């Protein structure tokens, strides 16, 4: 039995906000694959839960008229992976969410939960960072938009106020059209493991070899998921080459601040940052239509 002292089911986002206002100690539950485990382990006790599971609008995935891809916060990893809009326009996100846990976890875990729990090892967060995703938050006074990058305040801490609900993740057309990307999850097992390091590169190619745009994002390389702005700056506008790959890897290492944990040492993670940045960049280049000269 889980330590639950109150349980409410919201029928709409409005109702969820009302319930949050009325219950200062309450927390939202979507898939539960993080929250229930924290409760099982005694890290959360006497939980007052407000379930978002009965709100159909939070599960939607669609392309808006202006080309923006909108993913409801309650969309599960399985739904995102198999959705035609994601498969066609943002295959790198499909790839990233396919690395979460195992099939049963992907059937229950939601992308909103994966972001709101604020962990650096989130498989979806680094890719959303690389895609400059926006987050729509609904609160008592209306909605506000936050860049996913600004949403992360620290380990386990995000810019979500008590009376707010993350409703949508938005990826605008200029942030996915023409891009190719690649996500690498390094873990001890191929399934049911948490990333030792996560690395995603997305790029846009001009004339088959010039890097018109480049973004590199990492998980577990710092207390929160992060972008590598110096590496991106160094790579943009350059012609792809083996030397450029080496330079990208070397620069990325200077931007990160991983820690030693029981999973891996800081030194090992630094080596992974350098190596995986190169591998992700190379594959992203190919996926974006780049040709080796």
């Amino acid at each position, binding site marked *: 039995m889980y330590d639950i002292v109150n349980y409410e*089911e919201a029928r709409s986002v409005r109702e969820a906000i009302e319930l949050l206002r009325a219950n200062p100690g309450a927390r939202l539950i979507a898939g*539960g694959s993080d929250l229930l485990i924290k409760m*099982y*382990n005694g890290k959360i006790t006497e939980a007052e839960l407000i379930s978002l*599971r009965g709100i159909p609008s939070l599960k939607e995935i669609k392309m808006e008229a202006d080309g923006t891809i909108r993913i409801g916060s309650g969309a599960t990893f399985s739904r995102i992976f198999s959705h035609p809009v994601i498969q066609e326009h943002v295959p790198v996100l499909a790839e990233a969410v396919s690395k979460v846990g*195992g099939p*049963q*976890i992907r*059937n229950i875990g939601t992308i909103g939960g994966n972001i709101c729990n604020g962990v650096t090892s989130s498989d979806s967060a680094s890719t959303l960072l690389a895609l400059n995703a926006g987050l729509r938050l609904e609160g008592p006074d209306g909605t506000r938009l936050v860049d996913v990058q600004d949403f992360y305040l620290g380990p386990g801490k995000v810019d979500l106020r008590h009376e707010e609900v993350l409703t949508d993740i938005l990826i605008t057309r200029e942030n996915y059209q023409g891009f190719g990307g690649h996500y690498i999850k390094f873990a001890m097992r191929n399934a*049911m493991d948490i990333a030792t390091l996560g690395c995603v590169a997305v790029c846009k190619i001009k004339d088959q070899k010039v890097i018109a745009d480049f973004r590199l994002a990492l998980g577990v390389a710092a207390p929160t998921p992060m972008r590598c702005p110096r590496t991106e700056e160094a790579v943009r506008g350059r012609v792809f080459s083996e030397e450029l790959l080496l330079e990208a890897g070397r620069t990325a290492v200077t931007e990160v601040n991983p820690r030693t944990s029981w999973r891996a040492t800081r030194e090992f993670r630094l080596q992974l940052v350098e190596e995986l940045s190169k591998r992700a960049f190379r594959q992203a280049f190919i996926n974006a239509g780049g040709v080796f000269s």
Partner: protein
Amino acid sequence: MIVKKISFQVNDRKVALEVDVRASLLDILRDSLHLTGVKKGCSVGECGACTVLIDGEPYDSCIYLAVWADGKDINTIEGEYKEGKLSKVQQAFVDEGAVQCGFCTPGFIMSTTAMAQSGRKFTPAEIKRELSGHMCRCTGYQNIIKAAQKALED
């Protein structure tokens, strides 16, 4: 204690229950409905022993609140043996010697059953991926994969 009335289907049988909001689906399947083929392993969604099908898709019932089962169609291993006959998936597990201690078997069979019912074709790599949320501590994976492949042949 807060209770909620829910109704759902288990193995084609309609069930109406008052459930404690603190209970997992695993708790009520085993303790209220006595479907003890659903195994309790890790309790945290890592081992897959408690896997059941909910509307045809595999879920870890240990990290699925019982109240969420309202209105759902649930299948457990108990529903696979029909009219004195093992299902095709069960028979394949027997034929391939894919059962050692047997604790992980109901979960593996339910995930394989979901694959079989989807009507899709699966490559060997996809079969491994779909079964990757299950652990067999006898490490009988080779025969389990063989059994799944056999069950998914037409």
